């Protein structure tokens, strides 16, 4: 063998594969976790900030509390323009929608095809701007002169019917599609007259717990059948980003209003998720610190196992820099390999995450983020630097 090859052979001969593997595994775990934490944070902010995706937004319905004190004073349960200004003034709300309700009376009679009889009931309608409805049905519009009025029912209504009412009466359960075939009669009466319309179920909403009609119908009917009383605002809906909910919630508590708590809870979930990710970054950092020290220990061990070889080589005049360069080149190759394995593992995990998210119709960031690459590469470079600092003197 050439002298230089002999030296490489000597330095390699004292290394144990098991120690190398555990050293490599130690750094791999640390770097993988750091990379994963960065990518997860990217995915999280991507989900939160993605404007076109409802996942980042919450719709919160707010009304004033009805207490014994204000039972008979309807005005107190209405939102004033000052109230709305307070909400806008927070600067966290994207949009505010005002619910309009009927000022006429409604009676609806539901006929189910193939069934005798049906439900007849006093009803109430509400309307809200279309952008607040979770899924606007295709045929969701109404023009004066049309006899059939489309309705959106709360999903809960159908659930109540299917899981509570129908079994107890021996009635068949109904799918959303079936109910869309049903026709109502809607009898409307007010101070200025009465008229009967046909009603059909255009869709269901799980967001708004009320029977919705198109705004055009509400305005038309309030105008046509009732004396001109000013429209009051008893209920509003706001759209707000997940991470801003806490601010709004504070105001709601402060003013003693009411809201749908479960939405706030999902906002809390987002906060908890953020906390968990931060925790993971923290835990990741601890693991990285451990993995850094395992890397350094590996290097110290590697040098000390070759102590005799290194000392003797320097005794016969082999330059220290030659030995250090040999170690650094080999550690560089090992670090590059760790980087490659980390990249493959992260890509694989990312593609499973994409598949998982797609099943729930969430859209994740396209591929690994540059931050993730940057973090992994710079961590490896830092590790290589630490290894160099530790190795360069070849001392004990």
């Amino acid at each position: 063998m050439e002298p230089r090859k002999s030296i490489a052979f000597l330095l390699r001969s004292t290394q144990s594969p098991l120690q190398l593997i555990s050293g490599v595994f130690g750094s791999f775990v640390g770097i993988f976790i750091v990379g994963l934490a960065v990518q997860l944070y990217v995915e999280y902010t991507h989900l939160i900030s993605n404007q076109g995706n409802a996942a980042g937004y919450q719709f919160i319905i707010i009304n004033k509390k009805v207490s014994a004190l204000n039972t008979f004073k309807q005005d107190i349960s209405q939102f004033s323009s000052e109230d709305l200004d307070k909400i806008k003034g927070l600067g966290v709300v994207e949009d505010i929608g005002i619910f309009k309700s009927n000022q006429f009376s409604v009676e609806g009679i539901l006929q189910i095809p193939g069934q005798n009889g049906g439900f007849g009931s006093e009803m109430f309608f509400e309307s809200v701007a279309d952008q607040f409805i979770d899924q606007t049905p295709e045929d969701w519009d109404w023009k004066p002169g049309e006899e059939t009025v489309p309705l959106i029912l709360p999903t809960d209504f159908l659930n109540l019917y299917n899981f509570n009412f129908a079994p107890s009466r021996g009635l068949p359960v109904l799918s959303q599609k079936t109910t869309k075939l049903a026709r109502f009669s809607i009898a409307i009466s007010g101070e200025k007259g009465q008229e009967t319309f046909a009603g059909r179920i255009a869709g269901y909403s799980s967001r708004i717990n009320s029977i919705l009609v198109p705004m055009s119908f509400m305005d038309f009917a309030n105008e046509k059948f009732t004396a001109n009383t000013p429209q009051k605002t008893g209920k509003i809906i706001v759209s707000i980003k997940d991470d801003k909910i806490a601010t709004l919630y504070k105001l709601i508590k402060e003013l003693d209003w009411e809201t749908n708590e479960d939405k706030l809870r999902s906002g809390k979930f987002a906060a908890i998720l953020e906390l968990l990710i931060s925790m993971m970054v923290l835990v990741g950092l601890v693991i990285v610190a451990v993995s850094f020290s395992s890397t350094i220990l590996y290097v110290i061990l590697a040098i000390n196992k070759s102590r005799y070889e290194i000392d003797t080589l320097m005794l016969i005049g082999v330059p220290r820099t030659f030995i250090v360069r040999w170690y650094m080149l080999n550690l560089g190759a090992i670090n590059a390999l760790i980087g490659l394995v980390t990249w493959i593992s992260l890509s694989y995990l990312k593609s499973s995450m994409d598949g998982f998210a797609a099943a729930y119709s969430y859209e994740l960031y396209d591929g690994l983020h540059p931050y993730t690459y940057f973090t992994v590469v710079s961590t490896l470079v830092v590790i290589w630097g630490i290894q160099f600092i530790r190795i360069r003197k070849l001392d004990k």
Partner: protein
Amino acid sequence: MADNFTLRLQKVLPFPLIGRGQNTIWQKDISLTSGKNYQILAPSGTGKSTLIGILNGIRKDYSGEVFIGDENLSKASLDRWVEIRRKYISTVFQDLRLFDQLTAGENIFLSGGFEPSTFSKEQVFDWCVRLQIEGKLNDKMGQLSYGQKQRVALLRALNRKFRWLLLDEPFSHLDVDNMRIAFDLIKEQCREQQAGLIVTGLDHRFNQDEFETLEI
């Protein structure tokens, strides 16, 4: 440093020998001239290997100063010491410090890898023939006798340019004939390179005309 490779010991005293030696080379001013042969004679445990270690930069636990030419070696860095070993001071260690993982041939040629090769392979092989280990060059060190290992260590030290050759009890396992052959080769090379020779040993074996004897 040009042409002056004189080794000077100024009041050198290894810490472990404090209070022990009188009338020795320690704590004196001693000059060793490159080109001359010196024999260090002393019983075991009085500091022969310590002196070799000090002249090699292995041992730093002493007071006083050591110079090669004008350079104060007591203050030399590790890198400088490695350079001095590579260019000026070649050593055969008492424990030989060979590599068992390598063959005899690989051990011999190991030290030649960093200076422009000064000796041809044929030249070195010729020395191997003279020392009668040419048949062992492809054997791992473990298969060699101690006497053969001593010759491999000697050849590794010779396969380099040097101004000083330090031999720490180099012939303990050689018979008289082999010792004569090895010694001839050593003297020949030292002469050719105008190098000084320092040999340690337990008793008087060398020709007094050829060696200046230093007693510890």
